[in-house]
């Protein structure tokens, strides 16, 4: 749809009739036009010139009136997925990896090392940059879930969202359940157009109560979401696969129970335990390979000011008219 920023300018539009009535050329006196042979090309040129002049007047008037194309939604088909990045921003993410840190320091003092969160954000940013046709949403969670970015395929926004918040001072608690539930709500009311992924980047240390588990299961099923868990193991944590009794796990490794719950949901789920940045990178690369299916989505093309185009068209037409003016003969012989 088109609109005008300044519709009052349109009252100048009748001026476009002017070139059709007045030729605006200096005429050379001739004895008898009737004697000159009929020439189709000349007659056509006459009307073409008048029409060009009329169009250029219209273009100028439209430019003055500020023609714009209002925002519109366009259906597009891309290769990729709808990905919700669910990023743990609890305090433990500010600690370094177990091994393979770029800058090791004995005392984990902020600024002397690259934290798990920072590495995760960097790698996620790379992942997002590779998949230009994917739609991304970003969700942070620690004590309370923070929706950062709803699903969009605009790279600039995605990159900015991922880069933001890469500082220390995270909160202590980790409420994985609420975060997951809230992030799944991103898909509410959206058409299922391709594969859906929740990329959970977390280092665990969270428990899920039975009602929360039920709700997560229900939502994952409802929205047909594949869950990937990038598990960034904290130092001295037993990891996801160490065998131990449930009671012990509840005490020292609650993430084992969470993993167990996810695995037994009978829904698409995969965990990628990552002890170091390289492992995380491999995990992300694997997801990159797994999720490459066609996706249909509607894109919102923003409002666009068309007046420069109008003026451009008018200018080029006027240049053409000016060049014909140079070909004009002032005398007849």
């Amino acid at each position, binding site marked *: 749809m088109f609109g005008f920023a300044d519709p009052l300018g349109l009252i100048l539009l009748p001026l476009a009739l002017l070139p059709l009535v007045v030729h605006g050329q200096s005429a*050379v006196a001739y*004895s008898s*036009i*009737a004697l000159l042979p009929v020439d189709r090309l000349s007659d056509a040129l*006459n009307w073409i010139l008048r029409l060009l002049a009329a169009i250029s007047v219209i273009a100028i008037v439209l430019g003055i009136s500020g023609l714009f194309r209002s925002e519109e939604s366009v259906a597009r088909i891309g290769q990729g997925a709808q990905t919700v990045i669910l990023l743990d921003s609890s305090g433990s993410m500010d600690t370094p990896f177990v091994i393979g840190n770029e800058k090791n320091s004995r005392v984990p003092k902020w600024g002397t090392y690259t934290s798990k969160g920072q590495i995760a954000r960097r790698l996620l940013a790379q992942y997002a940059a590779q998949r230009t046709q994917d739609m991304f949403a970003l969700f942070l969670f620690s004590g309370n879930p923070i929706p950062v970015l709803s699903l969009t395929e605009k790279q600039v926004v995605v990159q900015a969202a991922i880069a933001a918040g890469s500082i220390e001072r995270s909160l202590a608690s980790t409420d994985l359940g609420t975060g997951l539930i809230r992030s799944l709500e991103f898909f509410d009311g959206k058409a299922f157009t391709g594969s859906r992924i929740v990329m959970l980047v977390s280092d665990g240390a969270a428990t899920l109560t039975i009602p929360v588990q039920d709700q997560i299961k229900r939502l994952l099923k409802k929205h047909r979401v594949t869950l990937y868990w990038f598990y960034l193991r904290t130092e001295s944590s037993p990891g996801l696969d160490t065998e131990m009794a449930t009671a012990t796990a509840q005490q020292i490794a609650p993430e084992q129970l969470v993993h167990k719950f996810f695995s037994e949901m009978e829904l698409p789920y995969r965990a990628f335990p990552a002890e170091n940045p390289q492992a995380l990178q491999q995990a992300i690369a694997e997801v990159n390979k797994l999720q490459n299916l066609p996706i249909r989505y509607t894109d919102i093309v923003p409002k666009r000011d068309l007046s420069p185009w109008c003026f451009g068209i008018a200018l080029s037409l006027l240049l053409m008219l000016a060049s014909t003016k140079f070909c*004009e*003969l002032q005398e*007849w012989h």
Partner: protein
Amino acid sequence: MKLTEVHYKVPWRAAGNFPGHHASRQKGGGAQFRNHAPLLDAPDPRRFDVHASLRDPFEQLQFRVYRQTSAIPIYVVADLSASMNFVGANAKMSVVADLVACMSYSAYRTGDRFGFIGCADPHSEPVWLESTMNRAAGIDLARQLRTRPPQGSNSEGLLKAAELLGTRRALVFLVSDFHFDPTLLDEILVSLAYYDVVPVMVWDRHEYAQLPRFGIVRVMDHETGRNRLLLMRPSLRQRIEREFDSRRERLAEIFRQHGRLPLVLEDGFDADEVTHYFFG
């Protein structure tokens, strides 16, 4: 302008009894023998013819009768429609003015009377100089014609020119560019059939020859007020030339049917060219 005399003759006998330069039907003091007559019919004893009197079986005295030469009226009937406004190598109106001045002078020199009728649309008053022996009349008229651009929107006034030409057969120079409908031309020539009409085509080479090779030009017709855009290019140039060539042939054909071929003045007025038309 230096006035050059134009010599002209007409292939018919003048009827007027005013002595002049042209062969006449009138008896009188000329050099051309007409017939013999008895003294009572031709009472001039100086013309007594001894041989004819001796030859006559009825033994009557025979006297010679001669033909006099008479004057004829000369008229210039000019088209004053706006198309005559065209200025090319020469202004058409200055060619008309030159012709008027020259013919007026030549008529005076030959002993003929000179008149002028300038017509445009049928509703406007014609520019009319009554047939006169005044030798300055044509000069004044020529000055007027040079300074007053013609405004007429058509040439139909020429149809009424015959009404002003008088009862004597005259030598009429019909001056125009003839840029009008050939049927109108035919009607005009029919209306002037009683007179000896010399069509003078005032054309200008710049109208149809030596046109620009390339360019855009908007031409304006002062007669109709219409204008037209032309994209000049060699092919159009050729077509215009061909158009005028065929028009010239067509006009010549119409004039020929009415008794005389046209006198074409394309390069301004030249008195010798006019003389050449009559004696060439």
